[in-house]
């Protein structure tokens, strides 16, 4: 349990904070792909794709294996799991805030003349 973004989480966030790399990560969710295929799908030149993939690999987000003439990239699960743990702590802050608002409104409601309970089914 980490209190704040660990260096590795920062590297992950940093790597994701670029539209092409985010697109690559989204694409790889469908499964492993070769560099050329990735470049074609994202519509960027292959050298650019390679550069983005290297940054993603440095952050641990993707890994590569060689297959014949090409390198096949796939997503790695662990950085996302780590990021998720960290994001959970953010969620808790906002859940608590929403709860405080909810509690406050419950009290206001009790004070008001309209005390009808309306448990809407929404």
């Amino acid at each position, binding site marked *: 349990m980490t209190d704040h973004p660990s260096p590795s989480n920062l590297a992950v966030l940093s790597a994701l904070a670029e539209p092409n790399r985010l697109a690559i990560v989204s694409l790889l969710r469908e499964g492993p792909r070769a560099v050329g295929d990735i470049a074609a799908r994202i519509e960027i030149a292959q050298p650019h794709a390679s550069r983005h993939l290297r940054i993603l690999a440095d952050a641990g987000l993707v890994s590569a294996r060689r297959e014949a003439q090409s390198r096949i990239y796939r997503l790695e699960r662990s950085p996302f799991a780590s990021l998720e743990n960290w994001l959970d702590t953010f969620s808790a802050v906002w859940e608590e805030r929403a709860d405080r608002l909810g509690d406050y409104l419950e009290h206001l409601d009790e004070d008001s003349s*309209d005390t009808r309970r309306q448990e809407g089914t929404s």
Partner: protein
Amino acid sequence: MTAIVDRDHANKQLTVQRSVRGAAALVWSCWTEPGHLRQWWGPRGWRSDHFELELRPGGVWRYRLRPDREHGADEEHWGRAVYDVVDPYSSLSFLDGSCTPDGTPIPGTDQPTHVSIKESAPSRCEVRIVVRFPSVHALEQAEPTGMVDGFTGALARLDEYVRPGSGKARS
């Protein structure tokens, strides 16, 4: 009543949705009037003071968060938000940032926050809060400010990034 939470990691976006009692006009007031905000804005065990709140696009909302318990000045958090969308009773968005006690914005701390309010039944609303995470640069900056030193626990620390509110108001 619990909140529904959705974490969109790829887009670094957090959505918290909760059903609350009250008509849309009242819920709107809770988000936009200092008298209401001080009653709930912020983590439990904290209070908030609101010094400035000009509800219009471009208007500034400035506040301070501090622990109820005895604390040092360096444990206080000063927030400064700038409203973007102000659509009464339904939609409020603002760039939520930190500032110094004299109100000077701290660059790179802005965090886009959007609140939508929808009446789902008489005297009941769905409140949906969407927060986009600050840039990595902002996270890196926030660490050395020391603003959060002394806060207890993980939540309080992260609070600084998310920008906390606190308050148990009532003096």
